[in-house]
């Protein structure tokens, strides 16, 4: 027996052979965590003060004094600060990776996380082209949103808590995109879910808001179940959950189109559907708008909800091996896109419209990932991060202004209802402009970012529909048509949003109007940056057929197909498998023919027409303020306004039955059957005791009689048996 520590000490970071040394990659993850810790401590301190005041019967107003308390000033620097440093680090690493022309991912191992007899999971991060893009999006857009939040949240008493949550979210998001295996990814996966829960319910004293957070968490957990099960299958098939060995061994170990790989990918899809709000698990996202608007921008538009797309893209090899799953992914995606777009048509809450728009755009990304256009999906993910973040932040600026104004006017109107807005363009110039940029971008108007990315997805759907041995060719054709229609719907509802918010007559309460004004600089500067990105962001991946045409300014747009080449090392295995299985994608669209250029041109023209038509059609329309708008829409409009009754169906089909079953289990099975049996045994025994004791009459004769009976029994038994 030795007294030696038999377990080795902490592991030093071990790096696998790499052509390129990442610069402090761990620090990128750690910085937001650090921010969380610092802000968390501040948050607890401020909460302690406010709760102490509350207990003594007063309210603590941190903004009452001449200077803000330190708990409410430090986060301003710490929150965005760590994000900035992380972003710079990410850029630095990006530059390094760019120069190195990396082919294989770089995996940095820190310590062994889980180790059992046959399973080893390291706390390791993986740096490759895909995670790099995601890191840049997360830290970059994240940083901007942090900055915006400084302005947006500055009068909130929970300011430090807000930044603590936000930093924690970024930490988990980075774990998600940088983790070197499914298990690590899952940590981030559930972690961002947690932060989403905390941030949706940020104003936790509001019952509806905390309900929304709870709903988000539980629905996400349904998806997480799929993820978990997929991991089990992966472990069974590969004996590991690390990306490297899984993807390298996938072709050898899993039969293409086989049950295992299809099950794995479908289960992953379930996980992705939960996180990325795909039908039918999309129900949590619109409710999630209960959180502060920058949160909606960061989590529920730019980053977290795209995690599902990232995961599908990351697992591209597996999906390429399972055409059925691909068709399902694409189908779910396109269905989601369509349904959400239709619902968005009938929403009045500005954030709800954006939420459904997000769901719809996520549907596009899934369509892209589903048809094997992984680059296109990631591309759209990126551009969507820009313009949707912009839209949300713009909406945030509007709400901020509305809220402020209504508050000044002592009005209790809903600051988020577009029916209460109108004509804001005169008072919020910058916001108006950048919102239009984003709207055109999302509508797919050339040459804005959304045009290139969305078009690529739609085009690839068409192209793969025509692949010679695609078993789902017809289905893909349908997808393509639906996607086209949905793209038009997008243009329409976004224009509607702009019209209702900024154009026409002001329906803002008269007293409040004078108080409406543009957001402070700390808020509009991020908007401007995002607007720039929304304009130029799409140029990183101009498709070849377009590059040389006038849609690519005849080759003048820089970086043509850059993203495609950049992601090549990640996606080429999948592409090879898919091409081998389905054949080369077609060069013309199904049904009617026509190449990529033609359809791109057609779609941008169509979108432009829709935008203009909508402007004309809706521009002159009179809207009624929310308070007076009592007529419930009927017919299809009613169905859309009620979101296709998803919530109601879930409520009646799942939530209530489970609750009823739970009650039944408790009141009947537990209390009556099981415990009843237990108590019956006890009471029966006692009753038996009492009954037998009644024979004890106290009469000596009885006793003698019983004794004699016993004698007869014993004698009889002895003699006759």
């Amino acid at each position: 027996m030795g007294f030696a520590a038999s377990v080795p000490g902490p592991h030093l970071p071990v790096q696998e052979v790499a052509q390129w040394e990442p610069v402090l990659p761990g620090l990128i993850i750690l910085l937001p965590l650090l921010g969380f810790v610092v802000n968390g401590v501040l948050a607890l301190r401020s909460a302690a003060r406010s709760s102490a005041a509350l207990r003594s019967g007063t309210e603590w107003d941190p903004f009452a004094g001449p200077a803000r308390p330190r708990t409410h000033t430090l986060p301003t620097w710490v929150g965005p600060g760590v994000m900035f440093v992380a972003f710079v680090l990410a850029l630095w690493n990006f530059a390094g990776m760019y120069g190195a022309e990396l082919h294989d991912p770089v995996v940095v191992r820190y310590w062994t996380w889980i180790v059992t007899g046959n399973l080893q999971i390291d706390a390791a991060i993986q740096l490759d082209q895909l995670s790099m893009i995601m890191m840049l999006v997360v830290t970059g857009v994240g940083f901007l949103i942090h900055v915006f939040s400084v302005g947006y949240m500055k009068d909130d008493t929970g300011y430090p808590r807000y930044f603590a949550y936000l930093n924690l979210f970024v930490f988990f998001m980075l774990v998600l995109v940088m983790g070197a295996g499914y298990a690590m990814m899952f940590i981030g996966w559930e972690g961002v879910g947690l932060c989403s829960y905390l941030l949706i319910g940020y104003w936790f004293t509001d019952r509806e808001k905390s309900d929304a957070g709870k709903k988000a968490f539980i629905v996400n957990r349904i998806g997480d179940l799929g993820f978990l099960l997929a991991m089990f299958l992966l472990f069974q098939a590969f004996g590991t959950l690390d990306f490297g060995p899984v993807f390298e061994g996938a072709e050898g170990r899993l039969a293409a189109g086989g049950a295992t790989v299809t099950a794995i990918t479908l289960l992953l899809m379930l996980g992705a559907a939960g996180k990325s709000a795909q039908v039918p698990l999309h129900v949590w996202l619109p409710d999630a708008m209960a959180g502060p608007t920058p949160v909606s921008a960061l989590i529920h538009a730019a980053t977290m909800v795209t995690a599902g797309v990232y995961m599908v893209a990351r697992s591209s090899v597996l999906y390429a091996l399972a055409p059925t799953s691909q068709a399902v992914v694409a189908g779910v995606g396109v269905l989601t896109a369509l349904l959400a777009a239709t619902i968005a048509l009938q929403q009045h809450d500005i954030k709800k419209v954006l939420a459904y728009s997000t769901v719809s755009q996520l549907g596009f990304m899934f369509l892209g990932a589903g048809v094997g256009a992984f680059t296109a999906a990631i591309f759209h993910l990126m551009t969507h991060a820009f313009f949707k973040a912009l839209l949300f932040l713009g909406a945030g600026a509007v709400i901020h202004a509305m809220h402020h104004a209504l508050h000044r006017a002592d009005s209790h109107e809903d600051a988020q209802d577009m029916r209460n807005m109108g004509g804001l363009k005169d008072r919020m110039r910058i916001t108006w402009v950048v919102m239009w940029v984003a709207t055109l971008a999302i509508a797919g108007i050339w040459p804005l970012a959304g045009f290139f990315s969305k078009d690529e997805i739609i085009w690839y759907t068409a192209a793969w529909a025509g692949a010679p041995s695609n078993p789902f060719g017809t289905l893909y054709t349908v997808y393509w048509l639906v996607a086209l229609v949905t793209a038009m719907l997008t243009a329409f509802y976004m224009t509607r949003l702009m019209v209702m918010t900024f154009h026409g007559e002001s329906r803002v309460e008269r007293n409040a109007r004078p108080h409406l004004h543009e957001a402070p600089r700390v808020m509009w500067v991020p908007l401007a940056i995002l607007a720039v990105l929304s304009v130029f962001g799409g140029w990183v991946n101009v498709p070849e057929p377009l590059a040389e045409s006038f849609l690519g300014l005849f080759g003048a747009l820089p970086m043509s197909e850059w993203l495609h080449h950049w992601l090549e090392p990640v996606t080429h295995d999948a592409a090879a498998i898919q091409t081998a299985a389905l054949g080369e994608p077609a060069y013309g669209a199904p049904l009617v023919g026509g190449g990529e250029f033609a359809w791109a041109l057609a779609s941008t023209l169509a979108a432009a027409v829709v935008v203009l038509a909508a402007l004309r059609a809706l521009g002159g329309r009179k809207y009624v303020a929310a308070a007076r708008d009592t007529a419930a829409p009927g017919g299809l409009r009613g169905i859309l306004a009620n979101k296709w009754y998803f919530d109601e169906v879930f409520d009646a089909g799942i939530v209530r039955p489970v609750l009823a079953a739970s009650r039944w289990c408790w009141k009947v099975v537990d209390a009556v059957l099981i415990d009843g049996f237990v108590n019956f045994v006890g009471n029966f025994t006692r009753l038996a005791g009492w009954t037998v004791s009644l024979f004890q009459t106290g009469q000596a004769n009885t006793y003698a009689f019983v004794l004699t009976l016993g004698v007869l029994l014993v004698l009889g038994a002895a003699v006759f048996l």
Partner: protein
Amino acid sequence: MLAYALLLSAALFVIGTLGVIVRRNAIIIFLSIELQLNAVNLAFVALSRYTGIEGQLFVFFVMTVAAAEAAVGLAIIISIFRHYKTVNVDRFNLLKW
């Protein structure tokens, strides 16, 4: 022959037993018990014809013991009679259940 004697003894014993069960008077019950003991005595005597003299010896032991028992028993009966002014056993049921 032995069988008859034993049967007689058994019969007497059963009578004694029945007496204990059906009679209510403590003294009669006690006498029934005495009858049982004497039934056994009869058995001993009968058996001693086949097994040896000890059987008859035992009868004296039993008689002696029965006498001692009677002394204590009657004392107890008197003692309870003082409380109840009766020796009817179905009156004595303070202790039950």
